[in-house]
């Protein structure tokens, strides 16, 4: 049973097509990495999966809920998608922590306000989640006082606090200084190991190679190639994949 099932997803910005018939499935407990050149539509795909980005057509089912369009092509009411988002965790490139709340309050906000669960229980869970991402000692810190890597780890804890069935990661290390990337990837590796279902849009080929069960290469709004990381990253079948990996893994000499 797939946690994410996408069939023939089309999306355009104005007249520019961004997704041109994407098919995708992610099984429970699977970690799938999506790679591809910028502008290939991989980030847009992620935003469509929780209904934050509207799309023209296609069947998208995430955590058992139709997103965007129903079976007969009827528009899914916003209220229904809001409800579905409780079970779809997403972490953004720009963290988007709530700056007027402490790290702990950020993590507690949705379980208390959306799920109406008792504060005391939620607080205990939130502290445990902060400990899980290595930030138990920063519970009372405000986002402005945290490094980018710390903010992103709080953002992961905040998404996990809703106990989602699936976690979506949207280039979560792209806005980080290089030395802070590792701490965020380590948290994600731990999640993958614990059996979380994850769809990860990333430029980190090392992470894709080690942590992914499957790698998907996207280009021009389509899935070009997919398979185990050793195959897609090691022995790519498609010319476009080879060309992309060539650019990413063996960049031409960079002038200083």
């Amino acid at each position, binding site marked *: 049973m797939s946690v994410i099932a996408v069939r023939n997803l089309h999306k355009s910005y104005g007249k520019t097509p961004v997704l041109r018939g994407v098919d995708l499935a992610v099984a429970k407990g699977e970690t799938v990495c999506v790679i591809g050149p910028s502008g290939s539509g991989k980030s847009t795909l992620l935003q469509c999966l929780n209904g934050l980005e509207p799309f023209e057509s296609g069947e998208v089912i995430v955590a058992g809920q139709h997103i965007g369009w129903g079976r007969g092509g009827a528009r899914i009411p916003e209220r229904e998608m*809001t409800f579905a988002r409780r079970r779809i965790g997403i972490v*953004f490139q720009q963290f*988007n922590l709530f700056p*007027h709340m402490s790290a702990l309050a950020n993590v507690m*906000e*949705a379980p208390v306000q*959306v799920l109406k669960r008792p504060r005391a229980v939620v607080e205990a869970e939130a502290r445990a989640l902060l400990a899980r991402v290595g930030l138990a000692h920063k519970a009372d810190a405000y986002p402005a006082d945290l490094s980018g890597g710390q903010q992103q780890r709080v953002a992961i804890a905040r998404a996990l606090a809703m106990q989602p069935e699936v976690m979506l990661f949207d280039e979560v290390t792209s806005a980080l200084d290089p030395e802070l990337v590792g701490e965020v990837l380590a948290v994600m590796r731990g999640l993958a190991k614990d059996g979380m279902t994850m769809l990860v849009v990333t430029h980190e080929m090392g992470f894709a190679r080690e942590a992914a069960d499957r790698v998907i290469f996207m280009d021009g709004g389509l899935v070009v190639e997919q398979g185990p990381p050793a195959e897609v990253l090691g022995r790519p079948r498609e010319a476009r994949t080879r060309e992309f990996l060539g650019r990413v893994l063996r960049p031409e000499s960079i002038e200083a």
Partner: protein
Amino acid sequence: MDFEWTLFVESLPALARGAATTAELAFVSICGGLVLGLMGGLARVSGIAALNAFALFCVTLLRGVPLLVTMLFFYYGLPSLGLLLEAKTVAILALSLTNGAYVTEIVRAGIQSIDRGQMRAARSLGMGWALAMRRIVLPQALRRVLPPIGNEAITLLKNTALVSVIAIPDLLRAGTDIMTWQANTFSPFAGVALMYLMMTLPLVWLVARLESRWRVA
């Protein structure tokens, strides 16, 4: 220069009575303006076209017509439509509506100045639009627009001086009354100016206090 110290002091009790009326009008209208402005600002960003258009229409009308004209229209114009309002009601209505129009645009600008990622993050956690607005966007937006909203409150306080034209015994009216009786302009108006100034001070203090309490972020 015809300043007379004794006349200045003797006029103070009468001025104080006028000031009480001014303070009452200002307080009620500031509260009314804040409520209207908050509702108006939310209507402007609601994404509901009809609500937005209605709010924009009201704002354009109320900002485009001088407050004095709005007040006179309500006072002299509405009775001919069969709606007879008390002078004080007219004053509060005109002041609140005009202030609400300005606050609407301040609140709208404040909400739109908050990074869109905040709304996205809130919605992605399963919050509905209203909950995300109330818990995440508005607290940040209102913090940011506190200084201009304080400005509007001070402007409103001073604009209450216009109510003397519809025969409300406010602070300015008390001053002009004394001037007429005593044939002396300078002494009572020194008191009038001083009292307006003194009434703005609590507002300045309140805004400064709220700003420092909400400084986080």
